[in-house]
């Protein structure tokens, strides 16, 4: 079963969602809505992308390739890509394979995992699990679009990593299934997209950036750079998540999800940087700048997400102060 169309967050999503539910294929009134930004634009794009993943129970599957909806999607995508590119400065003189981990260490930003490890209360952690579910319940799916667009070595390397994401053939080990089991064990709704109405703008943008990179062949370098940065900032934060979840006595199933990512992503970060991006750039060296763009976007969006959540919890100063004391010690 797929999800239902979420609640609108502004004039564009009001018009778009009404039209999608109506069953009509006339979207000219939606295209006539003036330029929008923020959550309204991000949610509209998220829903248009979702037509390509699992769809909606209350929208016809025919809408996936509707030309008017694609036209709207392109306009929203151009805005998103332009905003993401404006934040990015290309690193000069760095090699992706040799310098990636040091570059990530220099650019890694605010961390919700640090707060979960040390200070978060149960309600904050459950909220984090809900808002993270928008991605974790389709974990690795956005980068799967990239597979047919790669040369031989990069394709083999990406599917070697994705085989692990998808459970090595065992559905019980498939990562987004592990997450769903973790949510259920915590007493949370685990249906795909169930918590969309409560996610902040930053979650929608994180999701949209991954779909943008995954669905456009010209952005395959950014998709794989994003993947590499995501994997390279997962293993140790996952360990901190495990410690925080255990501190709060949360169920073994959700601890297991993060424990799996400690070891899996210690493998995946090596594969993503050396095998996947390395092979991509051997085959298509002109994509190096896009790899960095995707990597930067991953770190930048996670930093913005973390700041939003830490501000929302009144937790930002505590985390930063403790980090500094740890460095002095």
């Amino acid at each position, binding site marked *: 079963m797929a999800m239902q169309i979420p609640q609108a967050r502004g004039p564009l999503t009001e018009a778009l969602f009404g039209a999608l539910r109506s069953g009509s294929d006339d979207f000219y009134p939606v295209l006539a809505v003036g330029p929008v930004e923020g959550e309204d634009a991000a949610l509209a794009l998220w829903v248009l992308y979702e037509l390509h993943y699992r769809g909606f129970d209350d929208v016809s599957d025919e809408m996936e390739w509707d030309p008017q909806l694609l036209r709207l999607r392109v306009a929203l995508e151009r805005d998103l890509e332009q905003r993401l590119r404006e934040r990015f400065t290309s690193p000069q003189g760095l090699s992706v394979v040799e310098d990636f981990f040091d570059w990530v260490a220099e650019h890694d930003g605010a961390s919700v995992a640090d707060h979960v490890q040390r200070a978060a209360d149960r309600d904050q952690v459950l909220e984090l699990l809900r808002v993270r579910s928008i991605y974790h319940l389709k974990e690795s799916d956005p980068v799967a679009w990239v597979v047919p667009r790669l040369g031989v*070595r990069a394709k083999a390397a990406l599917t*070697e990593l994705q085989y*692990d994401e998808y459970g*090595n053939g065992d559905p019980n080990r498939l990562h987004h299934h592990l997450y769903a089991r973790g949510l259920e064990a915590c007493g949370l709704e685990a249906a795909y997209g169930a918590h969309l109405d409560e996610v902040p703008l930053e979650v929608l943008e994180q999701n949209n950036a991954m779909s943008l990179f995954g669905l456009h062949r010209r952005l395959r370098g950014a998709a794989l750079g994003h993947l590499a940065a995501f994997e390279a900032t997962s*293993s*140790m934060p996952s*360990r901190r998540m495990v410690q925080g979840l255990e501190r709060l006595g949360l169920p073994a199933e959700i601890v297991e999800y993060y424990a799996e990512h400690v070891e899996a992503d*210690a493998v995946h970060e*090596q594969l993503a940087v050396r095998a996947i991006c390395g092979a991509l750039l051997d085959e298509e060296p002109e994509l190096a700048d896009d790899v960095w763009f995707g990597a930067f976007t991953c770190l930048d969006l996670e930093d913005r997400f973390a700041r939003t959540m830490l501000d929302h919890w009144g937790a930002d100063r505590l985390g930063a102060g403790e980090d500094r004391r740890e460095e002095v010690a």
Partner: protein
Amino acid sequence: MSAAFEHPDVVLCPGGPMLLRGDHVVEDADGVRHRTTRAVTAVCRCDKSASFPWCDGTHKVLPDRLRPA
């Protein structure tokens, strides 16, 4: 012409773990045996992993002199 590619079973990552492809049993210094569970496994080379003998990324926070070659 289509090339044959190098695809080693064991990869030493500079400053990081050893990647093992395939099924293996790794015996640690105490004689305890650990079977791999995934298609590619990262074996700790810095001796600081909390998941020893598997890598948990800890090498990345070590000073250069403590990282594996």
